[in-house]
């Protein structure tokens, strides 16, 4: 048997696409980590950091968003499992369900943004409750995450159509799944640190 380290093989026993996605995930993790550390700096230096999220409705609303995103991760797991069984119809069905979850999350998030901007006057440059830095941090981090979700929905659409037509393989679905779970994973840090640490009592 050829040694894994002799070149030409695949030392991690996986295809190049999957390995590439893992590398992207590591680099994107560092992007989000840097942003969350920027948030920590901004927060620690500003005693008038706003706490704009009352339990009802803001935290209940963002918890619903979290559960929707988690649910879309479960449907993605089902899609990957169906793809590994070569069940093309079920794979596409679960991928469409994942896309619906992603769109629902984006819709809820945009509703929240819209309410904050129009009703509570929180914008990227200022707000009535404290340091204007809040807007830059909040809309910057949640906006970058939402961009990832929207790109994920487009990515899912392309792979679902391609896989349904037999153009893409089960590995492509799995690589798509890695990206989608990563987006969910990032939210598992954004939700507690941005929302639950800024509850208005």
């Amino acid at each position, binding site marked *: 048997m050829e040694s894994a380290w002799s070149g*030409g*093989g*695949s*030392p*991690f*026993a*996986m*295809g*190049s696409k*999957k390995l590439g996605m*893992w590398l992207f995930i*590591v680099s994107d*993790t*560092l992007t989000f*980590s*840097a942003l969350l*550390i920027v948030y*920590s*700096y901004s927060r*620690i*230096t*500003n*005693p008038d950091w706003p706490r704009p999220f009352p*339990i009802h409705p803001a*935290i209940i609303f963002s*918890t619903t968003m*979290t*559960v929707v995103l*988690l649910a879309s*991760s*479960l449907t*993605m*797991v*089902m899609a*990957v*499992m169906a793809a*590994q069984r070569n069940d093309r119809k079920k794979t596409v069905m679960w991928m469409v369900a994942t896309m619906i979850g992603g769109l629902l999350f984006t819709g809820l998030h945009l509703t929240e943004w819209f309410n904050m901007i129009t009703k509570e006057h929180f914008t990227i440059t200022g707000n009535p409750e404290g340091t204007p830095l809040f807007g830059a941090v909040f809309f910057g981090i949640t906006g970058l995450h939402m961009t990832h979700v929207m790109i994920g929905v487009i990515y899912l659409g392309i792979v679902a159509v391609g896989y349904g037509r037999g153009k893409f*393989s*089960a*590995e492509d679905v*799995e690589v798509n*799944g*890695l990206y989608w*779970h*990563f987006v*969910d*994973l990032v939210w*598992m*840090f954004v*939700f*507690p*640190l941005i929302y*639950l*640490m800024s*509850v208005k*009592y």
Partner: protein
Amino acid sequence: MNTHAHVEEAHGASVGTNIAIWVGLVAITGLEVFLAYEELQPTVMLTVLVVLSVVKAGMIMSYFMHLKYEKFSLVLWLVPAMIFCIMMMFIFFFPEAFRLLQMRPH
């Protein structure tokens, strides 16, 4: 060249295990929201939330992202480097954070 080789080896957990992990993730999220409702001290709250988030990240990476079922060399290749980079950001964070805390307007 065998870039697509061994792909079929990447079998993950069963449906039941994945659903159990999902229920666990929702339960931890529920616990986090409950703690927010309980109005803990900010430092205690931050510590608990970061620990719970790392646990959730571990569950997602291990099961949903199949890292538990990949070659261990992949984990060794990716995870320590990532943690090292995040730690480097934190090494610079703490002294600066304490200095800034002293300097901030009261």
